[in-house]
């Protein structure tokens, strides 16, 4: 009868041995003292491993995780805001420019508001306003785009 090897001994310890293996093991336990001693040694190790408890981290561990998570969350929120702010700003400036240009460009109007605007119109030259606002926005847009592109290029290895 073949003596169970190490793998088979661990199967016995894990409780996954077949009936044939268990019988073979029983036979060797009763007939071979060296085998019996070796099995007791492995069995004791198996039992000891089962009783080893989990280790605990330091008392500050929990607070550290929560604090780090909170700072990571706020950092990601800030990053997201920073990502969108330039686009929101550019969009608002463009809308304002378009609205301003279209109102100033109108010649026929009866409402009080547009009369007021027309009175400003007399003091402000619309062409001059367009000439100032549009290049100003264009410069702003280029500056922001340049900043974004530079950041992306710096990130590349």
């Amino acid at each position, binding site marked *: 009868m073949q003596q169970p090897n190490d793998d088979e001994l661990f199967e016995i310890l894990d409780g996954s041995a077949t009936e044939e293996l268990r019988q073979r093991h029983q036979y060797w336990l009763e007939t071979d003292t060296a085998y019996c001693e070796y099995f007791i040694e*492995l069995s004791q190790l198996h039992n000891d491993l089962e009783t080893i408890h989990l280790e605990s*981290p*330091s008392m500050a561990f929990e607070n550290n*995780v929560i604090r*780090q*998570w909170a700072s*990571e969350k706020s950092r990601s929120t800030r990053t997201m805001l920073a990502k969108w702010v330039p686009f929101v700003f550019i969009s608002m400036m463009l809308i304002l420019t378009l609205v301003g240009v279209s109102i100033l460009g109108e010649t026929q109007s009866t409402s009080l508001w547009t009369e007021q605007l027309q009175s400003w119109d007399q003091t402000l030259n619309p062409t001059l306003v367009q000439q100032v606002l549009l290049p100003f926005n264009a410069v702003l847009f280029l500056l922001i785009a340049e900043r974004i592109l530079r950041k992306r290029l710096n990130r590349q290895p």
Partner: protein
Amino acid sequence: MNENLKDIQLIERILAGETSAYRALVQRHKDFAFTVAYRILNHREEAEEAAQDAFLQAFGALKEFNQTAKFTTWFYRIVFNAALGAKRRQKPTEGITEINALAYAVTDTQQSLHKKERIKNIQQAMKQLSADDVTMITLFYLREQSLEEIAEITGISAETIKVKLHRARKRLADTLRKQLGEEVNNLY
């Protein structure tokens, strides 16, 4: 209540915006996360950092977690990878020098001194095994993970895990025997 169900409920609370649930999830799994990292790294501070890193990664990916799956299997995989990543960055000499930090948690009143000594020897012997061997033994014994779950955590097939686990225990037994032999020799 089923342990996985408790985890899923905590995750649902987190996703609903309840911040106190984060702490509860950390409380439930910190010991295991730390133990796995410590067994792999052999260094308490680095193990804490790796376990913290694993929690942060898990929190960041909670939205992507499939709630029909077992949380521990998913989380332990993150812990395992975080610890292995830290191990790769670790300098070769680190960890080996730390002998004093043995926190073998055997209930003092019930266990005999002899048993404590054996556990201490096992933990010393485990420090001499490879990260792979230690992980197999830790996952198998500490949280009674099935071979299939260990396979999912480590990304290795269950059949290979079985073989690796047998070999790891055999190596542990050999190291332990050698270690005890040296201690006996030193007495004479």
